[in-house]
C-alpha cells in the first residue's frame, strides 16, 4: 500500500438506504426470512483487510475452489469521516462531529440476500478503497445534497442523489453513535444506489462525488 489509508479502525456501511430500492424490495421484505421491512438502518462493516486507496488495484475474488468468481459489483457512497469522539449525539448536533468527507467504494460479490451478514461477499481483500482525499467538513454545507456517480471504462453506469436516501447523514450519525461510540478517523459510508454496478476483470472504475473527489481503481484478475 503506497498511499496512507484514510480509515482509522472502523468502516461502517449503510445498506438499503436507497428509498427506491426499499420500495422495490417491499414485497420481498414482507416475506420469510425477513417477515417485515427493516425498522433500523441496515449496517455492515468492511473490516481492515478490505481497506484500500485511490489508484490501487482491486483484487478479483476467488470462490472456495480457488477459481475466479464470475461477477463482482461495485457501489459508491459518500464517506463521512468522524472528527472527534462521537457518543450518543442527537441528529441536530451530529454534523458538528464530522471531520470531513470522502468517497468510499464497496466492491463485493453481488448482493443476493440481506438475511445473514455477508462475510463472503463483503470482506474481500482490497475491496474498500477510500479517498482520494479528505475534504474538510466546513467546505460542505449540505452533505445530503451531493450526488454519487460511477463510471466504468469511462461510461456512466450509476447516479445516486443523496436526497433519495431513506435516512440522512445526520440521522445516521445519531443512530450509529447510540449503538457504538465513534472515534476520530472512523468512516461511515452512508448510502449506496440500490442497483450495484456489475464489473468485469480489468475494468477501470471511477467513483465520484462533485466537490469531494474521484476515486479511481482498476479491477485485477487479468
Amino acid at each position, binding site marked *: 500500500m503506497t498511499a496512507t489509508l484514510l480509515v482509522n479502525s472502523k468502516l461502517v456501511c449503510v445498506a438499503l438506504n436507497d428509498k427506491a430500492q426499499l420500495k422495490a424490495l417491499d414485497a420481498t421484505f414482507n416475506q420469510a426470512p425477513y417477515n417485515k421491512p427493516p425498522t*433500523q438502518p*441496515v449496517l455492515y462493516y468492511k473490516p481492515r*483487510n478490505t481497506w484500500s486507496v485511490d489508484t490501487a488495484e482491486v483484487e478479483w475474488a476467488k470462490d472456495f475452489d480457488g477459481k475466479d468468481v464470475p461477477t463482482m459489483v461495485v457501489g459508491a457512497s459518500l464517506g463521512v469521516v468522524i472528527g472527534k469522539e462521537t457518543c*450518543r449525539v442527537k441528529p441536530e448536533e451530529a454534523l458538528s462531529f464530522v471531520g470531513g468527507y470522502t468517497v468510499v467504494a464497496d466492491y463485493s460479490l453481488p448482493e443476493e440476500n440481506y438475511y445473514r451478514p455477508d*462475510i463472503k461477499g463483503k470482506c474481500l481483500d482490497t475491496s474498500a478503497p477510500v479517498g482520494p482525499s479528505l475534504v474538510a467538513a466546513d467546505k460542505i454545507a449540505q452533505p445530503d445534497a451531493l450526488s454519487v456517480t460511477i463510471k466504468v471504462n469511462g461510461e456512466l453506469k450509476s447516479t445516486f442523489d443523496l436526497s433519495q436516501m431513506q435516512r440522512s447523514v445526520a440521522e445516521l450519525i445519531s443512530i450509529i453513535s447510540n449503538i*457504538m461510540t465513534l*472515534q476520530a478517523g472512523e468512516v461511515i459510508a452512508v448510502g449506496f444506489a440500490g442497483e450495484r454496478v456489475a464489473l468485469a476483470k480489468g475494468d477501470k472504475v471511477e467513483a465520484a462525488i462533485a466537490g469531494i473527489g474521484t476515486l479511481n481503481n482498476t479491477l485485477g484478475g487479468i
Partner: protein
Amino acid sequence: MRYARILVEGRELDITIDAQDKITTQEGQSIDLPLDSDQITWLPPVKEPGTIFALGLNYADHATELNFAPPKEPLVFIKHANTLTGHKQTSYRPDNIEYQHYECELVAVIGKQGKNIKREDALDYVAGYTVCNDFAIRDYLENYYRPNLRVKSRDSLLPMGPWIVDVADVPNANNLRLTTTVNGKITQDGSTKDMIFDVPFLIEYLSKIMTLNPGDMIATGTPHGVADMQPGDTVVCSIESICDLETRIVSEQEYYGKNY
C-alpha cells in the same frame, strides 16, 4: 505462558504470567501482586485489536435452544474494538429491553498473517486462546444481516480476558469444559467438544475469503444455557485451562455517565 495487559498505579503494562502466577513486565520487571489483587485493572488482552469474528449458532444445542437448525456453513459476524472491555470491568444493560444474555465463548487470537490457510496448518497462525462474553440484546434482533450491529456491536458488550494462554499450553481446545455462573450459580455448562465448526475449520474457512492478520480474533460461539442479565448481576464465564472472566452489569445511565 500467559499474556495480559494491565494497569497498575496508572501504568499500562504488557505482562507475562508464569505457571506460579508470577507477573513479569515486557521489560523484565517483576510485579509482586497476586492475580486477584485490587491494585490490578485488567485491560482487554489483545494490545492492538483487529477484526473480531464472532460465530452464531456454532453449538448444536444452542441453535436448537433458539429454534434454529444447526448451520451447514459458519454464521460469522464482525465486531470491533469499541465492544471490548477487560476482566472485572462493567458491561451495560440498555434501558427498556426485555432480554440481554451472556455468551461464554472460546476465542482464538491470530498471531500471524495468512490467507488460504489449510486446516492442518491452522494452529500455526494462532497466538493463543482467551475467553470472551459476547453479550446479545435479543430485543434488537432484525432479519437483516442478523445478528445485526444494534444487537452485537454495542460498547462494552464484549468483555475479554483476563489473559491469553499460549496455544502450545492447550493441547486440545476441542475438549474444554465451559461454564457460566450468574451471581455464583451455574447457568451454563457445556464443552467445546460440541462446537460445530472448530478453530482450525474456521481459520481455513475465513482465510479462503480474506487475509487474517495478527490481532484478529475468532470468538467461536456459545453452547446451550443462556439467561437474562440485570444491572447488579455478576457473570463469570469460565473455560477450563484458559481463564475465568468476570463482568458486572450496570445500567445504561451508570455506564455512560455524563454522555447518558
